[in-house]
């Protein structure tokens, strides 16, 4: 198995290997290989289209967790300019599972807050695999309140396997930290745009996920409990995670139907990791468009709309 490809992508991987082999041959033979390569490329694209046109909920969970999936720190320099990271909750510490800071979006100052899983092993450990502790949510809250004071819109990038379930998390009040964010974000007097870029797991995701507009990348997921967790409770076995993923409706298409997600941002063919630049520019377009819309509204009206929307969940 090629680790750069997911299990259901292996036929694509095989084609790509062939293409690569031919390219090597191509350099020392003059037969008409480029035509052959072109054909195989076309075939690979068609195959990718076909496979990605028919993904199950569980397949999408895998794409969202793909080891090469772009994370917040991959997008931030591509979507924004002049990002200055700000650290610390001023109470306990600095949680690297949540990054935040001031930046510019199309020239306009904004506050960016994103969950970061970390790429290399050392980085993953530093960032606790994207599982924030209370200080992460409190740092986010501090930055959001600062954004309100300086009339900066808030943009959050959601990507977490969940808030950290550990002794220290509980000791420092992880529940209260998340709850407080939900409460304050419901009334923060500045536009809040949320984008689920990878994995939106439960309260840990929602803790930076209340706002005026919620978008998901096409192959991102958002759930109240991980499919494995759900399967464990209901079927007493994680083997049923695919069934759980299907039953819970963890994808943007289902969540948009439920009226919870407002927009889906299309991913490049084969997922965001195949073309980070393109994905970033689509996210940027999305944010600029939505921000423009929200900033034309009086703040009071925007807040009333946000509140009415929160009240409508499930109706």
């Amino acid at each position, binding site marked *: 198995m090629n680790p750069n490809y997911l299990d259901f992508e292996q036929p694509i991987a095989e084609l790509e290997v062939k293409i690569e082999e031919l390219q090597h041959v191509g350099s020392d033979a003059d037969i008409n290989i480029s035509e052959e390569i072109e054909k195989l490329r076309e075939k690979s694209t068609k195959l990718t289209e076909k496979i990605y046109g028919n993904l199950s909920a569980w397949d999408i969970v895998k794409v969202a967790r793909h080891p090469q999936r772009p994370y917040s720190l991959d997008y931030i320099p591509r979507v924004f300019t002049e990002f200055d990271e700000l650290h610390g909750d001023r109470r306990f510490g600095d949680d690297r599972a949540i990054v935040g800071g001031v930046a510019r979006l199309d020239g306009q100052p904004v506050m960016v807050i994103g969950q970061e899983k970390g790429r290399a092993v050392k980085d993953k450990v530093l960032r606790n695999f994207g599982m924030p502790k209370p200080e992460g949510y409190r740092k986010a809250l501090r930055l959001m309140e600062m954004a309100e004071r300086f009339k900066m819109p808030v943009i959050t990038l959601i990507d977490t396997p969940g808030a950290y379930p550990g002794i220290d998390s509980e000791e420092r009040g992880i529940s209260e930290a998340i709850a407080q964010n939900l409460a304050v974000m419901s*009334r923060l007097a500045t536009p809040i745009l949320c984008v689920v870029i990878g994995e939106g797991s439960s309260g840990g995701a929602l803790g930076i996920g209340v706002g005026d507009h919620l978008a998901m990348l096409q192959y991102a997921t958002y759930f109240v409990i991980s499919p494995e967790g759900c399967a464990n409770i209901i079927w007493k076995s994680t083997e049923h995670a695919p069934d759980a993923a299907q039953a819970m409706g963890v994808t943007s298409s289902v969540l948009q139907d439920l009226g919870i997600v407002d927009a889906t941002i299309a991913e490049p063919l084969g997922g965001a990791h195949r073309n980070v630049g393109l994905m970033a520019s689509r996210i940027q377009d999305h944010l600029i468009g939505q921000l423009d819309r929200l900033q034309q509204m009086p703040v009071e009206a925007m807040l009333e709309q946000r509140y009415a929307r929160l009240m409508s969940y499930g109706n």
Partner: protein
Amino acid sequence: MSWIDKILPTGVRKEEGNRRSNVPEGLWTKCVKCEAVLYRPDLERNDDVCPKCDHHMRIGARRRLDIFLDQHDRQEIHTDVEPVDRLKFKDKKRYRDRLTAAQKATGEKDALIAMRGTLQGMPLVVVAFEFAFHGGSMGYAVGEKFTRAAQLALEEGIPLVCFSASGGARMQEALISLMQMAKTSAVIERMKQAGVPYVSVMTDPIYGGVSASLALLGDINVAEPDARAGFAGPNIIEQTIRQKLPKGFQRSEFLLDHGAIDMIVHRNDMRDTLGRLLAKLTATELAQSPPAAEEEGVETRDGEEVESVQDDD
């Protein structure tokens, strides 16, 4: 669970579990903690707190409201809120069927009961979780009823008290249940901005989505003795950190020590303590206390006068 339980339909099993928690018809029962044999009327008179070891038994939402509110002028509210199965969720069983079974077993539409009434003469809105209904989990119906109750409190400028007992968000309603966290937190925040008091009383157990929203957002957070409350369940934490959890982890004393709650309140003192607190927060004159005394000595303020039986059913 024994094999015979497994082959029984859920309804039967649920009813059985329910009967156990509500204590059978018989006059004698056993404390689930110290195993002392208790005379049922004694236990009831003591608000379902074991007279021997002080263990606070799990009680249902209606019993909870009954022992908390003044006897007169109670009115159940928002009874029209019903659960919805927007996802048509189906695992081994249909969620619809699970709901029907839970409704049959508990006689409730969902896991939250709301009432308006008075506490020592002070008007207020009170909600209580029914743990026997799907582990008190919060789906649309719980979130909606809580929100409407809070909105009523907000409109009338009267306090809201919530007795929570919940395993967390209701899995079968997926993201709709997650969003109830945002919804309930938003309405609590409006109360806070308007200066309308909200007291959250945590009763064993509270976890997950309910803990990370409405349960910890009180102007005053209170817990019953020895109640467990936390974000992640002990099993999940043990699996994650691969070590045993310290004794008393996530119990009321732990919550108090770590600053999550303001106080631990014994069930016998709940009316008096909350009455005292709310009177101050609403600048109600102390003169409001006497109306409670009017109720033919229902009060067991000092815990000495227990012969004036509160529930003579």
